């Protein structure tokens, strides 16, 4: 679908349109996408913006397509998506924050900050799935490569027949080089995310102008930030309550969660079990490592405090933050 003669603004509009058409029958969606791509093909940015204003709001086009398709009762071969809003309902701060957390979150809060950023990237509708996979796998691939190199060096160092080579970095150097390399990769991928988001933001601005021109006011759906105080307080208690008033604060947050009608039963269970599931997972992995072969030296380096911090603080905190952000977005989409 990527026509090189389509301008950046046009590509952004098409990306927004493709997201809006999520769930529409494949044949109809492909027809709309190819038809509008034809209209934007070969136009410079200014002409494309003018044509986009004529075409109108992608949400409106998609709504009309859905209405016409449902009226026809044509079996929809596309899977019915969840009720998440498209990028027209996603505030720009969300995608900016996600990119920043990917870039710098892992430096501020090692690993956990980056994980939260990646989770927000996957929840965001600003980027394509391919972009999300690149951002997720690139640092992981780099870390795995560094780990393999480290184990190879450890194995070579353990060999009595191989003398120490001053040109080969020591395992200590490799570890620090990997850490610095991972940080650099994270920063590069975070900046790359912002660059990939720019045409989408540009198209959203043009589409917003089209909406205003069509109806005389902005019809942007409410952002998830305007969900009301109750869901926000509930999510904050889930994320932080257990650290302010140990355990009880979190339990109170769970109580508010289940008392609210802002979420479905399934969403409430996710919000409730995210933190405990992270703790259980950490314990199970720890037990598996203890029962594993040849890991005695590795686990001995982790003191009791390390394990408490990791399993009792960092991991459940990350899980609760990810679940909390997800809950706020679900509450926002339901309110809209």
């Amino acid at each position, binding site marked *: 679908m990527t026509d090189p*003669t389509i301008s950046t603004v046009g590509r952004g509009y098409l990306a927004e349109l493709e997201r809006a058409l999520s769930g529409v*029958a494949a*044949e*109809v969606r492909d*027809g*709309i996408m*190819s*038809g*509008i791509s*034809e*209209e934007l*093909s*070969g136009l410079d940015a200014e002409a494309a913006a003018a044509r986009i204003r004529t*075409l*109108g709001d992608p949400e*409106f*086009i*998609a*709504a*009309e*397509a859905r*209405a*016409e*398709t449902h*009226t*026809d009762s*044509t079996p929809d071969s596309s899977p019915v998506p969840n009720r998440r809003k498209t990028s027209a309902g996603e505030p720009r701060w969300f995608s900016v924050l996600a990119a920043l957390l990917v870039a710098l979150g892992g430096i501020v809060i090692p690993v956990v900050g980056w994980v939260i950023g990646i989770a927000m990237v996957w929840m965001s509708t600003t980027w394509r799935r391919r972009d999300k996979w690149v951002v997720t796998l690139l640092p992981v691939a780099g870390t795995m490569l560094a780990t393999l190199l480290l184990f190879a060096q450890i194995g070579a160092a353990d060999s009595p027949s191989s003398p120490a080579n001053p040109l080969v970095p020591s395992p200590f150097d490799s570890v620090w080089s990997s850490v610095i390399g991972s940080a650099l990769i994270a920063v590069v991928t975070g900046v790359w995310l912002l660059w990939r988001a720019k045409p989408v933001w540009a198209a959203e601005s043009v589409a917003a102008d089209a909406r205003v021109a069509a109806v005389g006011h902005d019809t942007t759906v409410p952002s998830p930030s305007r969900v009301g105080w109750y869901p926000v307080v509930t999510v904050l208690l889930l994320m932080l309550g257990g650290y302010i008033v140990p355990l009880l604060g979190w339990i109170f947050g769970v109580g508010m969660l289940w008392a609210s009608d802002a979420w479905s039963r399934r969403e409430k269970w996710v919000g409730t079990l995210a933190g405990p599931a992270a703790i259980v997972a950490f314990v199970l992995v720890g037990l598996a490592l203890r029962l594993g072969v040849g890991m005695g030296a590795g686990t001995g380096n982790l003191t009791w405090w390390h394990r408490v911090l990791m399993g009792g603080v960092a991991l459940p905190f990350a899980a609760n933050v990810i679940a909390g952000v997800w809950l706020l977005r679900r509450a926002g989409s339901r309110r809209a």
Partner: protein
Amino acid sequence: MTADVGAQLRKGVVESCVLGLLSREPMYGWQLSEPLIATGMIASIGTLYPVLSRLRAQGLVSSYDQASDSGPVRKYYRLTVAGSQQLSNFRKQWGPFTRTVEELVGKDDNND
């Protein structure tokens, strides 16, 4: 109430209007949508493609790719033989139908 009645009326005839436009010449999507949007038959191009999909499924319309006058290759739509027959049938029925409806609606107005 008026808007709902209008929407229902338009839904009933929009497919025939598309056939009517294509009877003049093969057209691509945006070229079809412009007169339909201008006359209020459809609200946006999003309505058009499901209609075209139905017409193709019924064998009344077919499509082909062709370079347009402005350059890019576009998908053009044209009437099939069955589509021409369908349009002809609609034209034959439309006149008597509108006269019948006008007569009935007119009587209701007189009784008010």
